């Protein structure tokens, strides 16, 4: 494990006051291994050019690197075809792309989009917007008290008008791993499509978009140890083919006249303008990095850390951990302390070098459901260690001491 940690140069650098960094905010954004940083630098230093345009040496080289990255991403996802992988700026853009280029076209008045109470705003607000634009209706699968989708209610939420189920693979607050297979089966009974928000799930577990067969998958490079500003939309070819472009401009056209144009083939149709090409290439390197470690190994490391952290947090009196037990979630723990507001908790943990998030984590409806305004969130990644958890636990005791003056 120590060798994984040493792949990440930032984790070895003490903070400004000399305190070692304990980074527990990977759910927000993961740190980058040296190989990803090197891939960016190598691109800019040795062969940078715009993609899809140059016949000169770098133009050819950059296209090879870019398409190579796309191939490795497609392989990681189990996509049937490389062209089903579209580069976007991240999860948010991927979901907005599907909302505007697919849902807006297919939804009719009275049709239904099925979401749920645990979604990140990025998988909620785009649907609120598109139902307003089309006269469709947004429905919600309720949650159980322990933070699962209430599958007993699923049948009541589905109907002949359901056109889409949009669901997160893993909750960014509770860590809940959603039963995508069950949802895909249920969607099939009414002919609905399924979009999975993979922002949290893709970095933590192997996925195969063909089993269970999902229609759309969105994720961000920066949570997968890759660069910021780049992400992916996977879409089934037949769906991407029937969609009009989302953004229009260069690269996405086949032929442009003064009044009309025809669209380029996939995936270029959805990649208008200049891509963050170095970032896309380095995302390919990040994919190599995680697949070299292997998702099984990543799962083992993270699960051991999760069990240890959750067990030790549970030993702290009055601390409330929200969401499922460790057997039903990924490496995220959100908690509240009845006497220490999350904002104060994060402030005091910061003094011990612990970097984590306090707030609503872009999931206000979920916090309303939990009956709290904010939580403190620990999110673990493959580079965390037991020593990080030791510091966390000690720091929480310290925070409680300061605020309770005991």
């Amino acid at each position, binding site marked *: 494990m120590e060798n994984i940690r040493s792949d990440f140069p930032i984790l070895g650098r003490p903070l400004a006051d000399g305190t070692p960094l304990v980074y527990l905010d990977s759910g927000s954004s993961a740190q980058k291994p040296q190989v990803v940083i090197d891939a960016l630098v190598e691109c800019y230093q040795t062969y940078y050019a715009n993609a899809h345009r140059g016949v000169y040496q770098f133009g050819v080289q950059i296209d090879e690197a870019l398409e190579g990255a796309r191939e490795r991403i497609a392989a990681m996802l189990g996509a049937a075809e490389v062209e089903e992988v579209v580069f976007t700026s991240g999860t948010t853009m991927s979901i907005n792309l599907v909302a505007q280029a697919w849902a807006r076209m297919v939804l009719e008045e009275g049709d239904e989009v099925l979401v749920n109470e645990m979604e990140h705003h990025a998988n909620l607000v785009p649907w609120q917007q598109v139902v307003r634009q089309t006269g469709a209706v947004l429905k919600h699968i309720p949650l159980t008290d322990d933070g699962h989708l209430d599958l007993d209610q699923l049948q009541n939420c589905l109907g002949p008008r359901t056109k889409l189920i949009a669901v997160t693979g893993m909750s960014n607050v509770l860590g809940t791993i959603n039963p995508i297979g069950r949802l895909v089966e249920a969607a099939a009974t009414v002919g609905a499509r399924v979009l999975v928000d993979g922002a949290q799930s893709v970095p933590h577990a192997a996925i195969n978009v063909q089993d269970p067969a999902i229609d759309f998958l969105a994720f961000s490079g920066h949570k997968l140890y890759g660069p910021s500003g780049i992400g992916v939309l996977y879409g089934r070819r037949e769906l991407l083919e029937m969609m009009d472009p989302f953004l229009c401009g260069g690269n996405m056209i086949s032929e442009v006249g003064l009044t009309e144009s025809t669209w380029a083939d996939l995936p270029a149709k959805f990649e208008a303008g200049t891509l963050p090409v170095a970032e896309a290439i380095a995302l390919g390197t990040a994919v190599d990095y995680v697949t070299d470690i292997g998702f099984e190994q990543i799962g083992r490391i993270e699960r051991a850390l999760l069990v240890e952290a959750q067990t030790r947090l549970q030993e702290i009196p009055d601390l409330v951990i929200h969401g499922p037990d460790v057997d039903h979630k990924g490496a995220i723990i959100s908690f509240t302390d009845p006497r220490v*507001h*999350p*904002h*104060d908790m994060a*402030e*005091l943990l910061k003094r011990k070098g612990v970097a984590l998030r*306090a*707030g*609503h984590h872009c999931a206000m409806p979920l*916090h309303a459901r939990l009956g709290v*305004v*904010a939580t403190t969130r620990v999110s673990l990644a493959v580079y965390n260690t037991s020593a990080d958890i030791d510091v966390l636990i000690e720091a929480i005791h310290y925070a409680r001491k*300061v*605020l309770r*003056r005991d």
Partner: protein
Amino acid sequence: MSDELYDDLILDHYESPYHRGRLESASCEHTELNPLCGDRVQLQLQIDEERRIQQAYFEGEGCAISQAAASILCEHIEGRTLGEVEAFDARQMLDLLQVRLTATRQRCGLLGFKVLKTLAYAYDGTAGTSA
């Protein structure tokens, strides 16, 4: 032990706030949120004909800084006129707290102050002056 941020003044007000609750005879009330962290402060003021704040109460939820600051603010403004409140600036509010706040935490420390300013100006602009 005394903490540089969570000192006795802040924690005393956080644990035993001054005038936390409902003021039935309020002349006006207003709420603001800090959307970043979910802090919420509502102020309720009872203002007399001389435009003097007779009573100030607050309600809310949030971190120790935002809630203690609201409590300290209520204690400070009772007996003062709206004219005095209008002259009261953010620097003075932060000085009242007696601890140094980073830029992010200043938003917590100034949440109640923001509500007060909104109330004072709105009160002058409406029925307040003639009532």
